[in-house]
């Protein structure tokens, strides 16, 4: 291709058309609106993934929810504070509709503590959120009936969540996976009709204040994120991509175009910028530019040629 030609950057994440591969990780980007002072979100990103929303409002966890770990990582335990689907649609619906009109896909994240709650949230979304390009099912929510273990902790449990929500929408369903057994659980989700998989969620971790002997956040265990987890995330995307045919959105410690490019080479069709949004609010927009430059430097006409192009 000629030196000046720009590569085609559009990708398709399981039926979600994205103008470029850059998405945002749920919980790190508000619902987009908070970033409008930094750049024009709708004209820049391929997609945004909204905060997790349940059928009814959730209060979220008590104080403190966040600790800096000092190894290029942070620890958080927000507990999916959200206003419920009707409240979410009321407050953000028109803004998110505007993003769609500008060509940015909108992925709504669905949360629940039980299969019934997932179903109810999905039904409400289906009814109230015409602006959603697709849905991301967060299977890391604590399962109240199982004493707080993640809803999708096993292939069987993950499949049960997918079976519950699949009949309730014809729009694309992405499943946000926890960082374990990604090949096996990925295959189970694919078999139940998941259109795409996104991984990884935060890695469970602990941080103890040795003076007070208490956790540095409100729960004994919480989620580790940030550049420190990037290499783990790339490995899991690679393992999962080898196991499934559905497209993958790679998430974990992405802070620059090169980090995103690694994910794509490992097999990701799209990427989500997460924690870096908090540190550098311009990060996702910069990743769009840097990723295009990388594709250009690789001499491809279409970024899709680079998906899974890792040479081992």
């Amino acid at each position: 291709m000629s030196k000046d030609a720009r590569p085609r950057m559009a990708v398709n994440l399981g039926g979600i058309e994205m103008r470029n591969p850059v998405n945002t990780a749920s919980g790190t980007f508000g619902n987009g609106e908070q970033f409008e002072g930094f750049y024009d979100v709708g004209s820049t990103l391929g997609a945004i993934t909204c905060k997790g929303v349940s059928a009814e409002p959730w209060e979220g966890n008590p104080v403190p929810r966040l600790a800096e770990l000092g190894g290029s990582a942070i620890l958080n335990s927000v507990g999916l504070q959200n206003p419920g689907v009707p409240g979410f649609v009321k407050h953000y619906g028109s803004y998110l509709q505007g993003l769609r009109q500008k060509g940015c896909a909108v992925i709504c994240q669905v949360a629940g503590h039980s299969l019934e709650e997932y179903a109810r949230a999905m039904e409400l979304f289906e009814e109230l959120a015409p602006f959603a390009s697709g849905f991301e099912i967060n299977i890391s929510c604590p399962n109240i009936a199982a004493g707080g273990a993640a809803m999708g902790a096993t292939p069987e449990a993950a499949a049960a969540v997918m079976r519950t929500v699949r009949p309730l929408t014809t729009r694309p369903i992405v499943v946000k996976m926890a960082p374990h057994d990604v090949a096996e659980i990925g295959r189970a989700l694919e078999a139940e009709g998941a259109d795409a998989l996104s991984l990884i969620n935060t890695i469970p971790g602990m941080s103890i204040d040795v003076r007070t002997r208490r956790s540095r956040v409100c729960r004994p265990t919480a989620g580790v994120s940030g550049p420190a987890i990037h290499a783990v995330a790339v490995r899991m995307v690679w393992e999962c991509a080898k196991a499934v045919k559905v497209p993958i959105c790679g998430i974990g410690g992405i802070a620059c175009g090169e980090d995103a490019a690694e994910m794509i080479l490992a097999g990701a069709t799209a990427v989500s910028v997460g924690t870096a949004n908090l540190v550098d609010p311009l990060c996702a927009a910069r990743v769009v530019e840097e990723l295009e430059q990388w594709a250009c430097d690789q001499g491809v006409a279409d970024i899709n040629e680079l998906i899974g192009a890792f040479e081992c």
Partner: protein
Amino acid sequence: MTMERDSAAGTAPATDVHEFVVVSNEPVADGVWRMRCHTSVAPLLAPGQFVNVAVPGDAAHILRIPLSFSAAHASSETLELVYAVVGEGTRRLSGMHVGDVSTMVGPCGNGWALPTRGGRALLVAGGVGLPPIVACARMLAEAFVGFDVIVGAQTSAKHVEYLLDELRRMPPGEGCDCARKVLVCTDDGSLGTRGFTTDVMADLIADRPYSQAYTCGPTPMMAGVARLCEKRSIACQASLERMMGCGFGACSCCNVALTVGGYALCCKDGPVFDAREVVW
């Protein structure tokens, strides 16, 4: 209940990333530093708002440091930050040299509001809660609202003298029939009254009527101020501190428990709250 407050009025300047250049950075009391910097965010800031500062020099610590300011000069685009060196981030901040460049996110949050009813205001600051209280005092002086100030610190060496002087020098409020009091106290009695700001406040409010209080400092102190205000039906605004992720409402990490139930976000709904809204 979960708070989903509507966005602030459309006229408020958008939160953005601003470059800053260090103009000066020096200690002004024991463990307390003052940084003056040149930055395009300065003219956009209202008293009581804050900036979220990226401190270079350590890739292992990724979060910005939220800092309130004592003064923001619009015409010279200069911002004055007074901060305590308490952890890794503020230690690195104190190591920044004249001419060093980094970025700050701002304006962040909602600042102080002018009193909604007439009468005198009382400002209560503890430790490095002082800088936003000085910014508040300047706002009140410019609005011709009379006020008194109580400033507490652990010990004499931790009092920021030049800020106390600024408080004393600000013009008195219009129609104010009594001279301003700037009362100082220390935990160890090395300067001013020995004891807590709330002890001083209890005596002062028995003596003078106030319609509005403003407070910033350690949470137990602000809780005490809020209790005294509640008893006397004095309106009270408190500026809260939290560990913060983004500083602009994206991550929901800096929650503040509300008396009506549920949580607000310190960065977006605060940092200034009506003290009655907050579970102390």
